[in-house]
């Protein structure tokens, strides 16, 4: 038996919807956010509409049951049922959406605050556009010295940073569970791999209170490390972050 086209369209849509949930929530164990799934399904619906309606004959077949439901006098009974059920379902949906809940509202957070062009760090006005890691050049000039610097950076990290950012730099330190937003995962290709070292220097040195005014509140619990670490220690810890994760800082020049 051939499945009617309208039912085909509904089945494709439902199949994709449940497919996403099964694959992400159950097979991969990483839930698909509801907000994203809604966006996805809107365009899946657009795609289904496009495929089912580009041909005139197919479109007529697709809408025939709907047309019959509205126009066919023989379908009066089912029409009344459908026309009663739809407003009730919409009403329930609105009621469900408007019902007050106990969950905190979702927040739209930008992952990278934009740095200012200059910042006051260690009492001096620093130009973040031209600032460079003074030890980076040792990577080629003196690899042994560079390795020692990275080791120093590792020591600084273990003493100060791993409690939140984790001993694998994956943002899962012992204190991470208690923080919202959770600490940054440096292993993620979307974090330090996208940034210049000057950016990291600014974020580490000025911490949460140094974040820009726009897109506030940042609710970041990052300490102001210039109060606790020396400038050299911050540059060394930056070397370690890149070395351990295998990422390279953002730059504009080939090696």
């Amino acid at each position, binding site marked *: 038996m051939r499945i009617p086209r309208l039912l085909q369209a509904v089945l494709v849509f439902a199949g994709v919807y449940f497919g996403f949930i099964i694959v*992400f929530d159950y097979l991969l164990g*990483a*839930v*698909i*956010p*509801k*907000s*994203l799934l809604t*966006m996805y399904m809107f*365009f*899946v619906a*657009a*795609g289904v509409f*496009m*495929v089912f*309606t*580009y*041909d*005139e004959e197919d*479109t007529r077949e697709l809408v025939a049951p709907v047309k019959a439901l509205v126009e066919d006098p023989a379908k009066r009974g089912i029409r009344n049922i459908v026309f009663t059920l739809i407003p009730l379902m919409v009403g329930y949906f609105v009621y469900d959406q408007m019902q007050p809940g106990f*969950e*905190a509202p*979702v*927040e739209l*957070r*930008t*992952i*990278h*605050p*934009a*740095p200012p*062009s200059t910042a006051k760090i260690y009492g001096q006005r620093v130009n*973040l*556009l031209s600032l460079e890691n003074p030890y980076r050049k040792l990577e080629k000039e003196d690899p042994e010295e560079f390795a020692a610097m990275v080791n120093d950076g590792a020591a600084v990290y273990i003493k100060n940073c791993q409690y939140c950012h984790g001993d694998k730099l994956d*943002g*899962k330190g012992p204190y*991470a569970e208690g923080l*919202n*937003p*959770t600490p940054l*995962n440096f292993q*993620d*290709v*979307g974090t330090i*791999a*996208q*940034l*210049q070292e*000057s*950016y990291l220097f600014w974020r580490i040195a000025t911490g949460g209170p140094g974040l820009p005014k*726009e*897109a506030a509140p940042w609710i970041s619990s990052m300490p102001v490390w210039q109060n606790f670490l020396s400038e050299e220690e911050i540059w060394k810890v930056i070397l370690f972050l890149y070395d351990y994760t295998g*990422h*390279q*800082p*953002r*730059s*504009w*020049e*080939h090696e």
Partner: protein
Amino acid sequence: MVKFDKIAGRYFLKSNQKSLVSGLLIILVATVFMVNWAGLDAVRAAQSTVEAVEGATAVDGAYAPAPKLAESDYPAVAGINGRLIVWVVAQLHLWFAAFVLAVPIFVFIIEVIGMRTRDKRYDDMAYEFIKVSITAYSLTAILGGLLLFSLILFYPHLFTYLSTIFSESMLYYALLFFAESAVLYLYYYGWKWLQGGFRKWVHLTLGLMLNAIGTTLMLLANAWLTFMMSPAGVDAAGVFSGDSWAAIHNFLWNPINIHRFVANIAYGGSIVGAYAAFKFLTARNQQEKAHYDWMGYNANFIAICALLPLPFAGYYLAAEIYAYSQQMGITLMGGIFAWLFIIQAVLIGTLFLSANYYLWCGMGRSDGAKRYTKYIKYIAIVLVGSFLVWFTPHTLVLTNSELKALGGPHHSILGPLGIMPAKNTAVNIMIIFTFLSFLFYRRSNKIATVSWEKTGNIVQVALFTAGIVNILFLGTYHGYFTNTVYKVAASIPQVVTTLVVIVGSLVLDSFIYGKSRDVGPLHWGRIPERAQYALFLLAVAFTWLMGLMGYIRSGIRQHWHVVDIMRDASAQAFTPTLGYAANVVSVAALLFLAMVIFVFWIAQVSGSKTLPAGYWKE
């Protein structure tokens, strides 16, 4: 009717594509020539100015630094929000300007096609397009004047500072605007007069001049706005060196020039496509329907041709913004404006989906389309799949329960899809499959007669497969396993791969179908009405997209009139919320579309005759 369809099918698909490319090249070469001329002239003028200034320094000093303003320096006029006025007027001006700069480009090309094929319908269509743009031209000028007044009224010090630096180019701009108007009127009103033989050549030369002047006008205006983003020719205090060319040729000038040139063509195509759709839906008979269906197809073809390279031009611009300033780059795509970029991604995807849907619907014009329509669902799956990757945000909006379930805001599967390598890969695949839709459309009414058709098809499938594998490899390997230099650079071989697939496939197709026969006449007008709404959607999505992205481009300056040189001290210096900005742009887009409908209506009523017989004395 049959003749109409046959000619349209035969000529448009073969000769116009070559002419489109050659026409664009001619316009670009002419523009580059003019800009070089203008540039050299500006340098010469600048040198003489510097000398003049040096001579005058002892008396009255050279150029002043950028003024440091206070809130009281911004006139309060009847309690009106100056920023809002300037924002909306500038946006409306830009929309119309983009339209009226783009239309002459493809009008010129269509006119050339008409001349080469001696098919009058092309000439008539070109004339109809330019007729639509004439009213829009007046509105562009009116809005340009309004923008100038608004700037002088609400931001007098900024205007004074900019006009000191760009005094020469502003003068050239005004003179060129007169030239543009004169040439446009000659081009439009002389259309019927300058027909045939040498006269037609004169007319085409006017068309070329119109485009060269129009493009130069755009380049000059681009210099002013890019100067505000990446100032050059001034020192840290904003003191002008006197070198006008340095101020014009600032870091972001060319990236914006390229992006706008390509985008304007796509936008102009979409607006005239909407005009054709409007006329199709209001057509009174089958002949009119066939004509406007054909016109809509041409307009959509132009829009798609320009749409395909547009993501690359946009990516180049964004990469250059990042290269110029990390701060501006992050504000643009990772910071406060990141969510507007998600809307941008959604709208760009909508453009691709609409353009494809229109092509699929258009396959109904041919009786031979059934051979290819069976592949459409697979194209749709790839397009929608790529589209989902294209707009997956880097920062997800998570409820607390989702946050707990994931153990943090990082999503191990979706997170990597939020960064550019995934987007570049997705958009290249979307472009390749949009091209595939076009290829199927082209083939739908043809039957190949060469003996090696099957081998040719296998080679073509191999070309597509190799291209897609290469794009996926480049996006995955360089995108996720190398540093940012290679990550950004990998986008170039990705683009080259896409271009190789497109060009290689077109060449191969032209050999396979070079001596093909038609399945039958193309049935122009045999297209569902909903396909016309896809054309409307294309125009609306383009308009909204330009408004939102234009706001972002301007907004990344944040509280600066001229970045790091001249601070905005007005009460409106803050960056508004995304919702407010989106509302302003949406209202402006509605205003623009209402004005465009007026333009369409005017174009329609100008040709209608309602006078009852016997009104005038015979």
